[in-house]
């Protein structure tokens, strides 16, 4: 801690991360562990949960893995309500099934709403209640949103509906949880190169579309997003709540 520059340090903090084995979730786990935070990883793939644990070993933090689908409310609830420590939630699990509006299947619409909206709400509510019950101090919740939580994109109607929803939820939660000193923010990345988006980038037209819309001519990396998540998780951002850190190389500034 300097005179005016606060440390980004998560020693003695415990972060629960959903969708922790891949993409942004995995990046967030590594970044948080790197600055000393303990990790509770939730994912659906046991071997990936194990490999994440192995990867985090070098940071000498506590690692708990829980194999669970975020749509399984009862299983989640019995796990979260038994936690002894939780200071940070990275509410990350989410998915996308791009389809043009007129052709959106009912099944895809429901999957996206269940994962990106309902499960996001449920995880946040369970974790917030547990943080309050445990009387943890200086908690932080980070919802993983998207630039499509702020603007529209091609074949992103349902995704935008869910992510605009996450933006609204973030602000509402921030107000309700402020009195417990639980801060709530979102990060809104541009399209990040992750296992899920790899297939989008394989399409040349899509690649061009992303580049043309990103004034800073680079693709956002997992590390870019994980760094902002870590900043929001730490007390370096202790007056930031109800807001969104937009990591989009200028996409939404227009």
């Amino acid at each position, binding site marked *: 801690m*300097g*005179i*005016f*520059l*606060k440390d*980004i340090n998560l020693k003695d903090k415990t972060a629960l991360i959903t969708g922790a084995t891949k993409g942004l979730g995995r*990046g967030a786990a*590594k*970044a*948080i562990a*790197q*600055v000393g935070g303990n990790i509770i990883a939730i994912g659906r793939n046991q071997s990936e949960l194990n490999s994440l644990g192995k990867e985090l070993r070098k940071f000498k933090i506590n690692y708990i893995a829980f194999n669970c689908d975020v749509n399984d409310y009862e299983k989640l609830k019995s796990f979260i309500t038994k936690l002894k420590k939780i200071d940070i939630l990275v509410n990350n699990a989410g998915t996308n099934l791009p389809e043009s509006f007129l052709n959106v299947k009912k099944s895809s619409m429901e999957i996206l709403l269940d994962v990106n909206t309902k499960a996001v709400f449920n995880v946040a509510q369970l974790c917030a209640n547990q943080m309050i019950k445990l009387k943890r101090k200086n908690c932080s919740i980070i919802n993983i949103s998207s630039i499509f939580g702020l603007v529209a994109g091609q074949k992103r109607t349902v995704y935008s509906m869910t992510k605009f929803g996450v933006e609204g939820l*973030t*602000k509402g939660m*921030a*107000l309700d949880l*402020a*009195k417990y*000193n639980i*801060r709530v923010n979102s990060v809104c*990345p*541009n399209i990040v190169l992750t296992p899920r988006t790899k297939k989008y980038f394989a399409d040349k037209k899509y690649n061009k579309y992303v580049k043309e819309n990103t*004034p*800073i*001519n*680079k693709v*956002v*990396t*997992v*590390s*870019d997003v*994980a*760094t*902002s998540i*870590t*900043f929001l998780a730490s007390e*370096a*951002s*202790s*007056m*930031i*709540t*109800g*807001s969104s*850190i*937009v*990591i*989009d*190389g*200028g996409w*939404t*500034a*227009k």
Partner: protein
Amino acid sequence: MFKKIDLKNKTALVTGAGKGLGKACAIALAEAGAKVVIISRTKSDLDKVSKIIKKTKGSSLSFVCDVTNLNEFEKVLKKISRLDILVNNAGNNRPEHFTKVSQENMNYLTDLNMKAAFNVAQLCSQKMVKAKNRKKIGGSIIHMSSQLGRVGCEGRNVYNMNKFGLEGLSRGMAFELAQYNIRVNTVCPTFVETPMVKKFFKNKKFKNKMLKNIPLGRVAKESDVATAVAFLAADSSEMITGTSMMVDGGWTAQ
């Protein structure tokens, strides 16, 4: 994975660096390793800031200059060899009810908060783009905006006009400077305990009313804002441009 706030080998210029947020930013940037060029109208203030920076083993160069004097500021820029970061901070406020705002105050605030902010940003940008390796190493401009650059507030109409304007300038600049890998963002604090705000808070009724609007129930510390500025100055935020970082305890989330 986590990109720490590291400003080694960077030169940062801070206007209004003698007091309040400017002083805090200058010291925080120095603590993160930057060489800091500090500008203020008051030599004794600059001397105090230099002393603190020296104590933290940082390096600074100070110039007495009124930023509303374009020629004077140009001369200062000629004296420094390089520039990677600008904290465009100098600003002021004279709260008055809209119907009673005097011409004198409107002109004074607009000349300082908008015209001088534009001129300083333009001159610094011109210097920054000249560096041959700019595209590779990037650059960062941070405008000191306010939550009142996003929402209205009683007796703040001119300040609102100025800071909303600064938000617009910031987004426009972000577009035009992206090709040089210069990022442009604002920081929007709520009330911070600075000498300027302390004056307003002598009115207890006003203070309590304002505190009620901050969900976290506290004013920001100078270090909260300075840390956000340092984060935006560093490569930690290398894909963040054209955005505003709200350091407002939830004020604008409502």
